[in-house]
Structure formats: C-alpha cells, structure tokens
C-alpha cells in the first residue's frame, strides 16, 4: 500500500496544528517518547488528558455557578487543567487557562464565565483535531508510524 499520500496528510496536519498554535514543542517531546515498547504512548496520554480535563471543566463550571463562588478552589482547578494541558503541548488551552486565572485573581466572575466558554471551545476543537490526527496515524499502521523518521 502506498503510504506517501497519507504521510503527506499527516505531516501537513501536524504542521498546521503547530502553525495555528494549537500545539507546541512539548507535543514533539511526547512523540520522541513513543517507540516499539510503547507504540501508542502519545494517543494514550492525550486520551488521559481529555478524560481528566473534561472532568475539570465540569467541576469548574459547577464551581462558577455555585454562590458564593470559591475563587480559591476555581484557581486550583484551573491550575490543574493548565498543568496537564502544558504537559501535552496544548498551548492555546494553556493560554486560555492563564486568562481564566487572571480573572479569578480579580474575582471577575463575568470574565471567568467568558473565559470558561473559550476554554470549552478550545478543548472541543483540539480534541476533534487530535482525534483526526490519530486516526490518520492509525491508518499507516505501527511499522510506518515511527514518527521520528518524518521530521
């Protein structure tokens, strides 16, 4: 089977994820850690991130709507979200979390709400894009998937 088209698609998709600022160098670091002994590492850690962050988003939303708002707790939740986002290289997510934190520090409830909506959108977009990316990768199969050879 001719993988060259697929490979081109994969490279192009990855490049646009980087160019559009969805991902940063940390994502490359993750791909460097993937090998025969852990062939699905990147997809697995990204899946863990989305599972964890979906829970955090729900908790943040609930905490925002609970009166009186516990900004200390909100800050802690966003801190966790930001941390794991930066671990997978999700730079837009990380930046939006910083915005949320700033609003939180100012006890700006409306600012927090707006920021949360942006975080949810970024989250959903990144999830969809990465799912597509991993689907493409799966099509080339494990042997072709030595990503380092494509750099």
């Amino acid at each position, binding site marked *: 089977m001719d993988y060259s088209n697929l490979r081109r698609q994969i490279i192009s998709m990855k490049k646009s994820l980087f160019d559009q600022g969805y991902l940063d160098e940390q994502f490359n*670091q993750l791909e460097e*850690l993937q090998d025969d002994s852990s062939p699905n590492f990147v997809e697995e*850690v990204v899946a863990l*991130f989305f599972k964890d962050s979906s829970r955090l988003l729900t908790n943040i939303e609930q905490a925002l709507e609970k009166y009186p708002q516990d900004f200390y707790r909100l800050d*802690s939740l966003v*801190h966790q979200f930001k941390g*794991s986002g930066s*671990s997978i*290289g999700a730079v837009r997510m990380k930046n939006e979390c910083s915005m949320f934190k700033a609003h939180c520090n100012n006890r700006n409830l409306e600012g927090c709400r707006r920021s949360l909506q942006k975080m949810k959108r970024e989250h959903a977009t990144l999830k969809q894009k990465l799912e597509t990316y991993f689907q493409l990768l799966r099509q080339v199969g494990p042997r072709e998937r030595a990503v380092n050879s494509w750099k």
Partner: protein
Amino acid sequence: MALATETPFHVLAVDDSLPDRKLIERLLKTSSFHVTTVDSGSKALQFLGIHDEDTCPVSVQADQLEVAVNLIITDYCMPGMTGYDLLKKIKESSSLRDIPVVIMSSENIPSRINRCLEEGADEFFLKPVRLSDMSKLKPHILKSRCKEHQHHHQEQHQQSDSNSNGSSNPTNNSSSSSDNSNSRKRKAEDNEETSPQKNRSRHS
C-alpha cells in the same frame, strides 16, 4: 533480551494528575529506571513504609520498606499533602532521609524552589519535565548510595570508607546490607512493571 546483569534503579513518582503520571512514568522508563507511580503523598509514604500519623520516626519502620527506592520524584502542588510536605516527612524519617528527592512544579517561583532546596530536595524540575532532565537523576542516586555506603562502613568498621565515588555500575540496591534497604519482594502499589528495562541509547 539477555538476562540483565544490572538491576535498574527504582524511582517512586508522585503526582495527582493522571496524564502527568503517565508522562513521568514514560520518561523514567525510557531512561532505564524501574518505576512505581502513586497519586498522593500519603500513598507515597505508605509505599515507603511510614505512616503520616507518626510524628516520631521509628527505625523499625525501615523493615517495612520491602522494595528499595533509590529516588523519589514528586509534584509540588497536590491536594492534601503537597510535595513539600512529603519532602519534609521523608527528611524527618531516619530510614528514608538519605533517599534523594526531586520536586516538580509547573510554576517558576524562586522562593518555592529555595524553600524546597533548603529542606533537602536535591533537584527542582520545571514542568513539563523533559527527557533531558532525566540525566540529572542518576548522579543524585549514586551520591546518596556513596553516602549510605559510608554510613554503613562507619557503623560496621569504625573507619572511613576508602571508596571515592559510587560505582558506575548500578547494582541491586537491595543487596547492600544498609539499614534502609531490603530485598523482600512486594506487590507494587500502582503501575509498577516487572519487565526488565531496555537500555535505551537513543538519547545520550
């Protein structure tokens, strides 16, 4: 793979975030460490054989450490017991205080870093932790083993140890008769794998 003549060093990794735990585990395994991960400071203490209710470290607790731990790497920000709290407990324990401790944090706060180093942390990593950071771990392990070896010699022979540096061959820590290691096997807490480590030479 041929039977390993060297046993890898064993690192206990502590982080409440699941994706981060997976990452640190992978980084450590890629760097030829044997890894156990736990999600809290109190579970770390349990694994290490001390209970955080104990305010008074008892040397008999050392017998409960059934799997030797050569280094502890912990996140700073964790609910309940922070990485700093865990560091303090480790340093207060006569059986554990010589185990090197590394703190990880996503925040670059100099006062926090200094506080940890003053409390006895050997290294502070800014998150996200990278593969290149892993090469900083082994020197701390070797240094502490040399110290441990010296303590043992002083206790046993009442003379200073003539060995200069720790051996560059990582031998099984649990075979040394120092009072803070033990060779009994035990069911691991979390994601511990028993498969032998590959010697990865990709990143040198």
